[in-house]
């Protein structure tokens, strides 16, 4: 399916769009000793100059005259469109490209979807990882939500992390820096896990097609997480971390998951018992899910256990779903087909300038657009997440329903038969009224 399947070591690349993305990638780069192929795309030469990443792509110099996007997503988008060739060059030949951005600003919100599409056009699987702003940043939240929508139509999978959610995990006295660092670390850890999942040699190999099948078109309903644990009881610790992971709605996503992909990475000291225990505990955490399991060995991980998990909600229909066209259609010019599906017939059904990319890419699922504004939508989603909580099998209280009279049989064993207590008078159970 993958056009690059002839090239077994087709690389995985990371591209940061905007300042926030670069921060995250920098954390990731430091975490991965082997080094990763990454680039920083930004509209502001100023930001690029201080960029920690080795490869830099300046976007839209001719549009913004070197002044950046200035918080205007439209400008960010135009800038990115100016320099699509540079992005394509970077993505060329890659198997998977991660687009990392902080949404809400001009560059992140405007340019990231364009970058994602450009990368996709170069036949790579695109996974977009983005943060969304705090709720008090009203205007930026609106920009970010629209950007997420666009990212979903452009990328194969989108993982968003709300700063607000991260904020909720901290108390009021936390320094903002610490908060950002925490969010960046989490994202970097997850990215690292995904990178390992796709990149490291497999002990129990996870076929790329598995991952692709799982993710394609389901970005709205998938959740990722990666954790790392050390020490004697690391399998247990890893499960604990996963079940309380903020990206998984502190485990709620696991409880509701229909399919779970787990990749376990360890050093040369990885023990099969650990993997077994880990998976068993995880399976208890997601009772309805079917599992896809992979394991990789990375000598640099000796003493540590790294677990990456992708949870997909069940019953996700894959297919084109009509969605209200976004206000800015110009950004959608260019090929919309999904090259990675490898179905050549779609090439002819390309609609340049089409306002609805979903129509031409059947493998992409777009959630039907609810007639709600951004804030309402967020509220609804939040409420839904609360409903599908993880079940705790043993913590439920047993309620005593000993209301029906049993008379003579009060102290005897209950006469259960197919859910009814036969000791209770039949006429009562049948609801026959005596008057």
């Amino acid at each position, binding site marked *: 399916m993958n056009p690059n399947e002839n090239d077994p070591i087709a690389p995985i690349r990371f591209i940061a769009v905007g300042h926030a993305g670069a921060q995250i990638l920098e954390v990731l780069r430091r975490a991965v000793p082997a080094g990763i192929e990454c680039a920083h795309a930004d509209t502001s030469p100023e930001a690029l100059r201080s960029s920690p990443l080795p490869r830099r792509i300046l976007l839209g110099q001719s549009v913004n005259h070197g002044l950046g996007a200035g918080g205007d997503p439209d400008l960010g988008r135009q800038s990115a469109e100016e320099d699509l060739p540079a992005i394509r060059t970077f993505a060329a030949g890659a198997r998977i490209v991660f687009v990392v951005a902080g949404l809400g600003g001009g560059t992140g919100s405007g340019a990231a979807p364009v970058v994602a599409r450009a990368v996709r056009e170069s036949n790579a699987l695109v996974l977009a990882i983005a943060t969304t702003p705090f709720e008090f940043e009203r205007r930026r939240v609106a920009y970010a939500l629209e950007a997420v929508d666009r990212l979903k139509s452009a990328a194969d999978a989108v993982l968003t992390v709300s700063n607000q959610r991260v904020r909720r995990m901290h108390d009021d006295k936390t320094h903002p820096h610490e908060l950002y660092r925490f969010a960046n670390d989490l994202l970097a850890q997850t990215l690292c896990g995904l990178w390992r999942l796709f990149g490291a040699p497999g002990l129990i190999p996870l076929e790329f097609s598995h991952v692709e099948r799982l993710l394609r078109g389901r970005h709205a309903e998938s959740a990722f997480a990666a954790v790392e644990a050390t020490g004697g009881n690391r399998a247990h610790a890893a499960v604990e971390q996963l079940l309380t992971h903020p990206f998984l709605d502190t485990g709620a996503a696991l409880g509701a998951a229909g399919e779970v992909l787990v990749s376990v990475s360890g050093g040369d000291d990885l023990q099969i018992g650990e993997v077994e225990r880990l998976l068993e505990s995880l399976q208890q955490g997601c009772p309805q899910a079917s599992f896809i399991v992979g394991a990789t060995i990375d000598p640099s991980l000796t003493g540590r256990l790294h677990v990456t998990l992708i949870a997909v909600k069940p019953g996700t229909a894959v297919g084109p779903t009509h969605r209200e066209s976004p206000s800015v259609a110009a950004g959608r010019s260019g090929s919309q087909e999904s090259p990675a599906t490898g179905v050549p017939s779609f090439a002819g059904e390309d609609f340049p300038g089409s306002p609805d990319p979903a129509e031409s890419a059947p493998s992409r699922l777009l959630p039907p657009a609810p007639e709600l504004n951004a804030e309402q939508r967020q509220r609804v989603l939040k409420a839904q997440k609360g409903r599908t909580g993880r079940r705790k099998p043993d913590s439920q209280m047993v309620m005593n329903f000993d209301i029906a*009279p*049993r*008379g*003579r*049989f009060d*102290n*005897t*064993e209950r*006469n259960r*038969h197919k859910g009814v207590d*036969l*000791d209770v*008078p*039949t*006429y*009562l159970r*049948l609801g*026959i009224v*005596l008057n």
Partner: protein
Amino acid sequence: MFSEAPLLVGLEIGTSKICAAVGEENDRGEFTLLGIGQARSRGVRKGEIVDPAKAQEDVRTALANAEEQAGVTIGNLFLGVTGRHVEGFNNVGMHPVASDDRLVTPQDIADAAANAKAITLPAEHTVLHTIRQRVCIDGEEVVDDPVGMVGHKVEAHVHVIHGSAVRIQNPVNLVRALSIEVNHTVFNGLADAQAVLTPEDKENGALVIDIGGGTTEFVFQQGQGIRQSGVFAIGGDHISNDIAIGLKLNLGVAEGLKIKCGSAVVDPSCHGRRIPIGEDDHGIKSREVSVEHLRRIMSVRIQEIFELIAERCSEGCFLDEARAGVFLCGGGAHIPGIDVLAQRVFHLPVTLATCRNITGNSTTLSHPEFSTAIGIARYGGMRLRGRPRPRFNLRDVFPFFR
């Protein structure tokens, strides 16, 4: 083996009464009832002992009563067991014919039957009876002796009756505490079938239902085999209890009312009829209750019992095969109209059973509530005697059963 006809004693520790039947068998296998002893049961609920001290006292009374009536001394007996833990189910055991010439040997059949017995029972459960239904060679049912036939695979279809080992042991210990040996335990429903069915009935297929005080046993016998059996822990007590709750009476009054004007069917004649509940011992003023309500309460309960049995029996076999019909015994058989209700549920001929093929006091034999104790004694006789004509030489595998 036995120079003299051994004394056969069957003891049923029932929920409403404890009944001991003493009889003997002559060398032709004819059973004579010598005496019946009974006592009101106070320590049993739903067929299981809840108050051992009282139950023991009652058992002693019943046995003494029986000894007196029969003029014998009881040293050992056969004990009937029941309770909702007792369950029956069908199983098939297979065994390949190992010999070179593919001739079926008795050992092959025994092995197949042993395989059928090797089943996963619930924890703590023990097998009470394993009853052969039929033997198949290579999928073909064999009517007569399969020994010597040629085949590759022997299949033994058996019915297994099992129950909780602990709960079966309780009454056994209670009897042993009276210095009386328990030869064997028998499932009450099986005993009923021994007492009330003639060989013709068995051959035609018959469903025996024993509605006791706390339990209802049922056995669907066809030919030598048992097609289905089981226990529901519902009985006359439940009917009285329903009446007590429904008509707001105390249990004793409800029981009396059930016996006096109860019925299993609600006929139009009882519409609007009310009967006074007489002033009781405590001088409570009389009040009236509706007969229709009384019978409605009873009717739905009994109908439910029948429906539960019909449902269980239709698992894996057809009730229509009970061509001899339904035989009702136990104290519940006294309820007026119960045969009509049974007929409505099962669509089969219904007989209010009496003990048959037994000589003795005919008044006693005609009482359906003694059928269990008498049947246990009869079963004991067969067990001691062995089958008159063992067909497959399966003494070790199947209890001798006719």
